[in-house]
């Protein structure tokens, strides 16, 4: 994406921002609350419109099209707070994940893949999504997004509010998915883990890019350590 501005009413949340996500890479967006990370993902998936600039995906412009078309092109967004349909069953949530026309004929195959990645979802397929634990809900949210057979998967704070065990599971999963040729755009508060896994990372500050580089470079950068990670987390324990 190039030179993107996003406004909420009169409040500008993202300023002239350009990022690039390589095919097959894991790219992390990190930064403090209110830095514009979530806004950026929403602009890509079309929930909010970019005021200026251009968002391109495999040469196609996403700037003018509606969210339901963005997901059909191959960009899935796992929103912050998971946003599951809590009164629907696990199976129904997954079924709706494959709603886009491109994904519909692949439903059986996608379902097998989701159940393969998360066996617990198969066990609980007839339970309502609201009855799952936080970690299971995050798995369902990711599984639901994968049902659309995305080329680019955008994850907004997938580790938020999860126990350390689930956090590790989620990060392992991101690696696994990336091995399966899914490009990942990751927004995380868990900066240490995110930078460790990312090929490329951008540090956002009040709607602008403050720093960018390879994940492990940024991790080693003293400025990043001081501002976002803190001594205890910066040093290997």
């Amino acid at each position: 994406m190039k030179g993107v501005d996003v406004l909420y009413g009169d409040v500008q949340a993202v300023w002239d921002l350009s990022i690039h996500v390589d095919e097959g890479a894991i790219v992390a967006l990190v930064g403090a609350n209110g830095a514009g990370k979530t806004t950026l993902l929403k602009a890509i998936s079309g929930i909010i419109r970019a005021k200026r600039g251009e968002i391109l995906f495999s040469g196609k412009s996403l700037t003018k099209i509606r969210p339901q078309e963005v997901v059909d092109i191959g960009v899935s967004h796992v929103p912050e707070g998971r946003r599951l349909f809590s009164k629907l069953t696990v199976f129904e949530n997954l079924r709706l994940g494959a709603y886009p026309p491109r994904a519909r004929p692949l439903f059986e195959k996608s379902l097998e893949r989701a159940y393969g990645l998360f066996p617990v979802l198969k066990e609980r397929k007839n339970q309502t999504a609201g009855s799952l634990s936080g970690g299971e809900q995050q798995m369902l949210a990711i599984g639901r997004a994968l049902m659309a057979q995305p080329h680019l998967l955008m994850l907004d704070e997938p580790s938020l509010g999860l126990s350390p065990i689930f956090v590790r599971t989620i990060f392992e999963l991101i690696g696994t998915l990336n091995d399966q040729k899914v490009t990942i755009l990751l927004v995380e508060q868990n900066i240490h883990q995110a930078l460790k896994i990312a090929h490329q990372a951008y540090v956002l500050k009040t709607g602008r890019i403050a720093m960018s580089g390879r994940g492990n470079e940024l991790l080693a950068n003293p400025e990043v350590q001081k501002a976002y990670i803190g001594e205890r987390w910066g040093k290997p324990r």
Partner: protein
Amino acid sequence: MLKLLNVGLIAQGFVNGILFGTMYGIAAIGLSLIFGTMRIVFIAQGSVIVFFAYLCYWLYRLFGIDPYLSIIPIVLAALLLGIAFYYALFKEAAVLKDRISSLLIAVGLMFFLENFMMMAWTPNPRAVVTSYGFYNFSLFGINLTLTRFIGLLIAILATLGVFIFLKKTLIGTAVRAASEDIEASTLMGINPNRVNVVAFAMGIGLASIAGINIATTYSFDPVYGFDIAIKALIALTLGGIGTVHGALLGGILLGLIESYGTYFVGSAWAQAVCFMVFLLVLIFKPNGLFGGTSQES
């Protein structure tokens, strides 16, 4: 007072309440569906119901079509009308998520229909009087009017149909998902207009069934619709927004309250009792009695 406590009459009141209540129930399901995706109280629902009652009356008087035979063309016309109404009146406002405008359009539609019906059919009450309209039969010592009994069966079938549609079809599941979180549903590739129009057409379709039930069992006039809309809203509140069975049970409960209210304190006070229960439920169980889960913001 003691002479009122007659088991036979109480049983009769129970049956009448249920017969009446299912009509409120299907009106409430329609409101619930439309509220679910578009987040507006479709206040014109009652007038739409009365409009279809007139249509049924008209087909009977002009062409001699039996009201129960006219169900198929009327429901089909209602579904088409629902689609037309949505695209002509509500789409623009719904796309902009402008609920105030949607609500105002619904109010406008209600007044338009009321006045249209007054011009077309005069303000005098009408009723569909068929040869079998007064036929009564007795079941376990309770008197039943044939038309009311058929009305009950139709209402139950319609509810079952809606329930199965929402549960089993992909677009039905999408409607339920959009009712919970419309933004997340667009991330799944669901077109908000598609679910809105499906929910709206179903709401109008249910209104047509309620209209046929009214035409065959009661007399109606052009402004009766507002009363039905308010009752459907109360039924919806009693049952809790968001579930089909909740709305139906809410309607039946309201029918029972009205029926027993009329029996014990007279029909004028029965209305007061209805509103009192409505207020009490709003105060103590704002999520409704049968809905269970809370309505998300």
